[in-house]
């Protein structure tokens, strides 16, 4: 099993969700997050005092998939979330030891 974490631009969430649904992904967890990358934030002025907007808002999507599906799922996220401009985000893929559905106690791929 793989966990795919995609950090994307907030307004791309709907497109990514649609794309993942088409891939047959049945569940996902999202959270509103903030962060910065190589570009850092930007400076703004409020009533004559400067302040730096360090952390820009992003959406993080977490999904679990079987090992063999990981590559195609990542591809569809890439296509849906890409604008080609700075700040499109990142995707992290990690291996997961196990998954458990709390209601039934099912484990592994059955629990996805």
């Amino acid at each position, binding site marked *: 099993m793989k966990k795919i974490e995609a950090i994307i631009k907030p307004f791309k969430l709907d497109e990514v969700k649609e794309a993942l649904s088409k891939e047959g992904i049945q569940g996902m967890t999202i959270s509103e997050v903030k962060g910065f990358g190589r570009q850092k934030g930007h400076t703004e*002025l*409020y009533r*004559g*005092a*400067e*302040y730096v907007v360090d952390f820009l808002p992003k959406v993080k999507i977490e999904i679990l998939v079987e090992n063999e599906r990981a590559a195609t799922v990542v591809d569809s996220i890439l296509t849906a979330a890409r604008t080609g401009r700075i700040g499109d985000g990142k995707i992290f893929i990690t291996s997961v030891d196990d998954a458990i559905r709390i209601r039934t106690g099912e484990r592994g791929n059955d629990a996805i």
Partner: protein
Amino acid sequence: MSCFSVRRWRQSLLRGAVVVFFAYILSGLAIVSLAADEPQPDPAGIATGDKSTAIDAAGKPFVVPAPTDQSDPDYAQKKKAYDEYQEQAAKEPLAVKLADTAGHTRIATNFGWTLNTGYLVLFMQAGFALLTCGLVRKKNAAHLMMLNFAAYVFAFLAYYAIGYAFQFGAVAVNAAPGNLGGTPTLNQFLIGSGQWGFVGGKGFFLSGPAYDVGSNCLTLFEVVFMETAGYIIVGAICERITFWAFVLCELFVGGLLYPIFGCWVWGGGWLSQLGVSMSLGHGYVDFAGSTVVHAVGGFCAMALAIILGPRLGKYDSDGKPRAFPAHNVAFVVTGTFILLFGWMGFNPGSTLGATDLRISGIAINTNLAAVAGSAAAMLFWSFVFGKPDISMACNGMLAGLVAITAPCAFVSANSAVIIGILDGILVCVGVLLNERVLKVDDPCGAISVHGYCGWLGAVCVGIFADGTYGAGWNGVGAASYLGKAGQGVTGLLYGDSSQFLTQLSGATLCTLYAFGFTYVVFSLVNALYPLRVGPEEELAGLDVPEFGMLAYPEDEAMPDMVAAGSQR
């Protein structure tokens, strides 16, 4: 003793001081207010407004008074006019009865106008609460709303007990509000007399001589003006003052600081009488309170902000200011519009009567200065910093409003626009001056908007007043002024330099008075009981330490969400 119990101990002392203050007022001044008076007040309103208050459009009375001064060169002419009136009145008694009705209706019309415009001014409280709440950080939003709320409550009580009497207790001596029937029972100074009155002396607790319909109408209108000065200070001292110290500030503003200067200018006191006593223009003129209300509030706020010091983290180790951005811009803009709406009561209402048709011009001037001020602030900010700042655009509108408040009745539309532009720029410069040079931390810009722009507004009367209005103002110009009968308040550009001097020195005196009085009193208070919250409370936000609840509980509502989930 732990740090916590020391704070508790101090707080209860401060609370004790508030109670003692009230007890002092109650015991010491109740006697004065209940003393018997001549003439008698009219609590039912059946004797207010008769033929003597019937006047024509030019202000000429229906009743011709009997001339008393035989040495007057016009005595013979006046006597003839009086005799003619008497003869006609005897011939047409029905006309005299009709004049009684007309006079009463005029006063009633003015009551309706004054009360309703007073209600508009009252609504400005809501605008100011929204504006200032939007400008502070989220963690202090509930605290700030409570300050605005308590400002109205406690300042009102102080004004009821002593403030109104100090301000208007002698209004009938030099400045009787004829549009409301004249309030003849408020006729004695506590300190001073004649043209040199300093503090009014009748109407404590609104009893005795103030138990009168005309006086009550005036009280309602004037108390909401005082409240305006009261809430101005919130904008500069918020996010770090303790609640009970703030209550003490409000009692001070409502009971002493505001009413005393108000007496000098609106209660027939010495500043207003300078035209008669020292031949200085029409005396010090402030139509609706650029200085009486706004500069008093603004400079009181400045003194308090200096005593309190800047918010933690406002300046870094090099002294460079940090931004604490507004947490709700929608509140800021909505609040500003409510204030603009309320100002339509503030300025036109200050005629104290709808039968004074100048109200339409005043309303137009007020709006024009507001939009000109806002436009100037937007353009100035874009020019200097690249893009307009929304909160400064709102401050610019308020700056225009504050500045036009004193001259609104005396200037033309074009002058109103110029005044608005001047103050739209001044407010931006003032905010930058406070923030970068003086390092006075003013979260909402109250000092610049109300203090600096209020001062300039009153000075603008002495520059732009065109002489078309205000004949007889403070007893000057009805018969003749600058060689012309019926000459109104006249500024430098229209040929009266003495008016300009009076405005300049009067407005400057106001700033020194408000700043100095507040600084002395609250430096002492601060030395005894610190006005400021502890650093931990300040960093955490004052909502919970001071009031035990958050403005936005859902931000920290994890336990509630779990509870809600478990019920499904």
